């Protein structure tokens, strides 16, 4: 059986007829144009302003043009397509929840609240949730939320943890956004290592923490101690003057005892920097990225402090300071049990609230009259946006708002802390305005000069604990200064060397 299907004669003739008829018709059609316009004209229009969302729209446009039809000019119309960018109406934004994680107490946050309210008013789609935690659990909770994949959208970041977080690559880079918004890093009292890594700016400035020496003029007068400004040379105040002053204020026994100064030299990374750096020493060197605790100038300065501790007994021991504080509810300086105090928290406002005497800022003692004043101790607390943040844009806007002059001024006026914005933080009429501790001018001038930052690196907490442990042994007279600092330096540098850091910790501004 054949599968070839034969065309029927009648069907063949029918198809042939249709084909011929079509050919005749086609041949009779007049030619209209000489050419066929095929190109698409794309007209680009400049966009005058940044729109919420760009929309590319293809518009069909009728264009008239003259063409030659059989040698005769004739106007014809043709359709071209035009791609234009049109400004779209801002689409209603989706409501988002912004989680801000902070260890700052409600008392302070209340003062900042008007700015939070304003932020919400200008960003009606943002539902701001403030997760308040206390300082003692802040670091743990933050790291656990990060590990759990539910990080906050933005959080406070202290100087000890900053380097680890940046090193781990969990901080969103903010520098390019700041640059676009005209925010300049140099306008802030920030320390390079705490906000920068690999040449990128990761942390939004918040507050600066300055080391400050204070004294109680009432106790000075009562004890017949010459005023450092009026009778002891002011900015030429020397180590010897300082030591004699402390000796004069140290007297009494038992519960009636008073000391020269409330100072915690065992926290050497912060609290021994002024004598060490003022003596020309350095706790660490940026070029080698190593601790240099055993440099002779460091040992000399530490020995001098330990003489005051052991021989003069003019530095209140940790045990007494802690017990006095818990018993009296205020620092030994505020309780007038110490004539002077070295404070590394920068929280003068707290002292103003608790001390019922007009305290004053003391000059920083110099090695001798010809020496330069020691650089000021400075570290910062900042804000970061985790790379895993679900709302990076909103989070950036929020941390930017905190870094801008409005919020920074509020932080200063209410004396919540020293604002990081240089113009506000160093404003004598700002944070230190009412009632100003006497000689606040000196602190402002001192803070504007050279600063000595903390050696931030990813294992800082562990290193500081090692260091404090060895300082304890000096205080307990179990080791000499040299023995303890040698052992500490060895352990800390080994830790530094064994740590795998991915960052290039290029110093930015110190």
């Amino acid at each position, binding site marked *: 059986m054949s599968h070839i299907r034969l065309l029927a004669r009648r069907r063949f003739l029918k198809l042939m007829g249709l084909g011929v008829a079509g050919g005749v018709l086609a041949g009779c059609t007049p030619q209209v144009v000489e050419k066929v316009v095929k190109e698409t004209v794309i007209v680009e229009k400049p966009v005058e302003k940044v729109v919420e969302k760009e929309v590319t729209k293809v518009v069909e446009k009728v264009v008239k043009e003259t063409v030659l039809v059989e040698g005769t000019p004739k106007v014809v119309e043709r359709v071209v397509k035009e791609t234009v960018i049109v400004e779209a109406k801002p689409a209603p934004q989706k409501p988002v929840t912004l989680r801000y994680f902070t260890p700052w107490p409600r008392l302070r946050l209340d003062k900042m609240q008007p700015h939070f309210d304003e932020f919400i008013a200008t960003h009606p789609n943002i539902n701001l949730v403030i997760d308040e935690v206390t300082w003692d659990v802040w*670091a*743990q909770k933050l*790291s*656990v939320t*990060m*590990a759990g994949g539910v990080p906050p959208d933005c959080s406070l970041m202290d100087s000890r943890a900053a380097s*680890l*977080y940046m090193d*781990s*690559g*969990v901080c969103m880079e903010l520098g390019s956004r700041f640059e676009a918004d005209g925010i300049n890093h140099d306008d802030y009292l920030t320390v390079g290592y705490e906000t920068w890594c690999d040449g990128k700016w990761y942390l939004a400035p918040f507050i600066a923490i300055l080391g400050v020496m204070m004294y109680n003029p009432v106790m000075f007068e009562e004890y017949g101690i010459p005023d450092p400004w009026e009778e002891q040379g002011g900015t030429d105040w020397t180590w010897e003057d300082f030591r004699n002053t402390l000796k004069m204020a140290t007297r009494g026994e*038992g*519960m009636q005892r008073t000391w020269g100064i409330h100072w915690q030299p065992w926290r050497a990374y912060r609290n021994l920097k002024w004598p060490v750096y003022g003596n020309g020493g350095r706790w660490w060197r940026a070029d080698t990225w190593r601790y240099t605790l055993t440099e002779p100038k460091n040992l000399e300065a530490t020995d001098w402090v330990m003489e005051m501790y052991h021989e003069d007994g003019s530095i209140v*021991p*940790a*045990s*007494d300071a*802690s*017990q*006095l504080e*818990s*018993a009296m509810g205020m620092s030994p300086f505020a309780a007038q049990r110490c004539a002077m105090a070295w404070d590394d928290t920068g929280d003068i406002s707290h002292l103003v609230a608790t001390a019922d005497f007009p305290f004053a800022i003391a000059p920083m003692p110099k090695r001798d009259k010809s020496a330069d004043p020691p650089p000021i101790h400075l570290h910062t607390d900042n804000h970061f946006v985790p790379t895993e943040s679900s709302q990076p844009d909103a989070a950036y806007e929020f941390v930017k708002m905190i870094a801008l002059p409005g919020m920074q001024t509020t932080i200063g006026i209410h004396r919540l802390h020293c604002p990081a914005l240089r113009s506000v933080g160093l404003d004598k009429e700002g944070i230190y305005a009412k009632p100003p501790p006497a000689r606040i001018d000196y602190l402002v001038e001192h803070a504007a000069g050279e600063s000595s930052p903390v050696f931030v690196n990813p*294992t800082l*907490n*562990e290193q500081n*604990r090692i260091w404090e*442990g060895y300082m*304890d*042994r000096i*205080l*307990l007279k*179990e080791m000499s200064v040299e023995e303890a600092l040698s052992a500490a330096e060895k352990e800390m540098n080994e830790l530094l060397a064994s740590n795998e850091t991915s960052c290039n910790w290029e110093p930015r501004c110190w």
Partner: protein
Amino acid sequence: MGDENSLVGIRKAGGISHRSRRSSRFLGIGREDLTGYLFISPWLIGFLAFTLGPFLASLYLSFSRWNLLTPIKWVGTANYLKMFTDDPTFYKSLSNTAIYVLFRVPGVQLIGLALALVLNQKLRGIAVYRTLFYLPSVTAGVSTALIWLWLFNTYFGLINVALDAVFGVQGPNWLYSRQWAMPSLIIMGWWNVGQPMIIYLAGLQNIPGHLYEAAEIDGAGLWAKFRNVTIPMLTPFVFFNLINSGIGAFRVFTNAYIMTRGGPAEATLFYVLNLFYVAFDDLRMGYASALAWILFLIILFFTLAQVRLSNRWVYYEAMKPAGGA
């Protein structure tokens, strides 16, 4: 038909046929068992999610390096090697903990037993005394630590004030001197005896009176009765308390964390406190997990040793109900 009738008959007779047993099983578990599992399911789910899960995870982590921020990195036995060969703090914290256990555990047994003996007397208002002595056991550890911080205050503390008033001596710098910080925490630990005291009290009340009567007939005095009746009959309770308070003492944390932070100069740096610092200050979760596993093995070893040795001194007849064979 005949078969079905016989089944019905068996059911009616209260027997369980093969078929009926199969029909009441779900996933191979009997209906009765299933009901039991359902009842304990809240605990079971909690155990699997919050105990067994982290337990196994920590075993894996102990062979890893993890700072909570970057991915977990397998390092094999490096954490354990470092612990035993290159970490003086590990040995320091271990020896501190051992000293604490050595003094705290026997002290708690003695004080707990002494209190239980006193509180076992039929006195007016004895229930109030029992409550008062048990109260520290149900008080939050932080509150207790803060109260003791006050008591140990060198200048204003009640202990030193009393020492001065009664004996005319200047009390030591309790929590801030290397010599006295550890004894301070041990003394504080001795005070927290509510739980062993209650267990000893229950044990004392479980001793049949006829044993004492028999001893009296034999001419036993107070000490002889205590030595030959009370102590043997209490040995199962002593055993339980030893294991319980031993485990608790190895895990000492709150008091040191609140009162001394491990100082001065690591004098009170206990094992778990060190573990906490490693985990949550340094964010070295892998190393901290390895520390936790070593502690687990140490506690397991001492517990098993006590169980093994208990055959020699625990008098299990005491656990049998009075009058039983």
